[in-house]
């Protein structure tokens, strides 16, 4: 009897703590995975895969990374571009030195290098807070950018000063380099992003996520309940930079196929930060929404008028994007700091009680 009751408690709390406790949500998730893994590969052409899906997924991963640091732990970083770059250059060096090891392993391992760099630049975060810390992360951004340009060893002394992605195969199928098909690259990117999203969701829903949010909401009180601030913050820097590093490595190896240091400039940091803000600080779903909105907005601005027979100059598209994104940031921060993810939840809530208004 006693035993059974214990078992009961266990299953009920465990079920209560599941990440998607509602059945419809689980069905929805399954449907999304099905579309992503089966439908899109079947119907998708190069444009969809290469120009929409792959970059969208890669930006999502970077946004998740930054969200762990800024949204969950409350540490504002402007060094995302730099940390992504560390991943890309580390991956290049690893696969140059050990060409026969599976490239996917190197893409993931390169995250460890950005994690290490992230921890290094995160060290001052114990003493420095708020925008002071943001300025400190700028030191990381500009220093790393400088390294990417000034240390030729990093880009294998290529004449152009750019990363040139070599051909790497997996069981005979080209995965990186010019002959890799967009479908192969898409499937690899998708798998990595799905697994890493799952892991991130595990982290934020458990002890570690609580620790991070406690540090974000009230660091002094966090310390008084026995949370070690430096440890929590450094762990956030490490995990966050790991994600950004993997995103950076994928960006160069599985999307661009080659890149200059400029790709990892401060603009990239801001772009990812905006995805996090607009998607919703402190929500993982938000990172998907934010990445979709910010990445796809310019495509829409370009394609729709073009389809209507009013081609817009590319630079105008860029400028319009700036204006719209700028306005959206202010609007979201003012009206809905939890971003698109919150709007999505409210929408679902409405659906749940539909057709009754309340």
């Amino acid at each position: 009897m006693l035993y059974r009751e214990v078992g009961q408690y266990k299953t009920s709390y465990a079920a209560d703590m599941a990440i998607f406790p509602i059945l419809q949500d689980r069905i929805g998730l399954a449907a999304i995975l099905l579309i992503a893994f089966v439908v899109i590969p079947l119907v998708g052409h190069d444009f969809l895969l290469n120009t929409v899906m792959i970059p969208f997924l890669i930006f999502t991963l970077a946004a998740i990374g930054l969200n762990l640091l800024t949204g969950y732990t409350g540490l504002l970083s402007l060094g995302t571009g730099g940390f992504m770059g560390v991943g890309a250059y580390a991956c290049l060096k690893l696969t140059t030195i050990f060409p026969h090891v599976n490239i996917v392993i190197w893409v993931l391992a390169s995250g460890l290098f950005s994690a290490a760099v992230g921890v290094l630049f995160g060290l001052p975060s114990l003493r420095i807070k708020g925008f002071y810390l943001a300025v400190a992360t700028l030191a990381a951004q500009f220093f790393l950018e400088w390294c990417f340009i000034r240390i030729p060893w990093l880009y294998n002394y290529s004449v152009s000063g750019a990363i040139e992605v070599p051909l790497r195969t997996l069981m005979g199928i080209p995965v990186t380099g010019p002959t890799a098909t967009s479908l192969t690259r898409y499937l690899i990117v998708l798998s990595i992003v799905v697994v890493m999203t799952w892991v991130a969701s595990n982290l934020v829903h458990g002890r570690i996520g609580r620790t991070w949010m406690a540090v974000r909401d009230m660091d002094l009180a966090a310390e008084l309940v026995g949370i070690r601030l430096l440890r929590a913050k450094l762990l956030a820097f490490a995990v966050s930079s790991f994600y950004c590093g993997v995103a950076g490595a994928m960006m160069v190896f599985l999307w661009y196929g080659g890149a200059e240091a400029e790709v990892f400039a401060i603009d990239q940091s801001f772009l990812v930060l905006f995805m996090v803000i607009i998607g919703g600080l402190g929500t993982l779903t938000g990172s998907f929404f934010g990445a979709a909105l910010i990445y796809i907005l310019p495509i829409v601005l370009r394609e729709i008028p073009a389809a209507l027979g009013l081609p817009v100059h590319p630079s105008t598209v860029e400028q319009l994007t700036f204006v719209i994104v700028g306005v959206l940031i202010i609007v979201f921060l003012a009206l809905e700091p939890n971003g698109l993810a919150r709007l999505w939840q409210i929408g679902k809530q409405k659906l749940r009680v539909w057709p009754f208004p309340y």
Partner: protein
Amino acid sequence: MRAPSSREVRLGEALLAVENVSLAFGGVRALTDVSFDIRKGEIRAIIGPNGAGKTSMLNVINGFYPPNTGRITFKGEARTTMRPYAAALGGIARTFQNLALFRGMTTLDNIMAGRALKMHRGFFWQLIRHGPALREEVEHRRRVEEIIDFLEIAAIRKVQVGRLPYGLQKRVELGRALAMEPDLLLLDEPMAGMNLEEKEDMSRFILDVNQQYGTTIALIEHDMGVVMDLSDRVVVLDYGRKIADATPDEVKCDKNVIRAYLGEPHGISA
């Protein structure tokens, strides 16, 4: 009210002793040469007019401010400075005068955060959140649910605490402190800004915690009625100095105490 005789029986040896502690912020002398002790199992009240240094005293006890002089002995170990983390590890929990909740988190998460020191499953288990990590989570969740039931806040379990009314926030904060299963619980004006009914609830919780779990409590409170009802012994601070240290009844009649409170807006209300 409990009979004085039972009180004497309950009091054990000193759990914490404050000796000659002084603390200054620039020119402001928040504490001057304060000494007192807190015995195992008692409810010790710290009272005094506004700005008397009560909060500062608690901040010194749990390591938030290092005192300029003096030392503190906790569980037989003397120290002059320590990190708040070490205080938490030693078994000191705390609530705050102006609330220091994790506002973006739910009630449940806030109280679960109080278990931070008791959860040990490492990073790699957390990555998959299955097996040991989940078991640990469930185990602590059960303990936390007991606290939630005890404080009668089951209905707001999944509400973000920033959206709760003040009185409930105070309760959640107490819950978070209780989740630490402390040996010494420091309560900084747990009933400030509450109506009579809320005060009665809170008093009941404090007494229950003290009696059921034997937790030693240091309590700052302005409402003398509450202090009379709850506390075993009272320290009175004024301008950072200790002006009295006795039972509630004695303190109420103490000349120095009455003088300190005269002219203060709230005065003594018993």
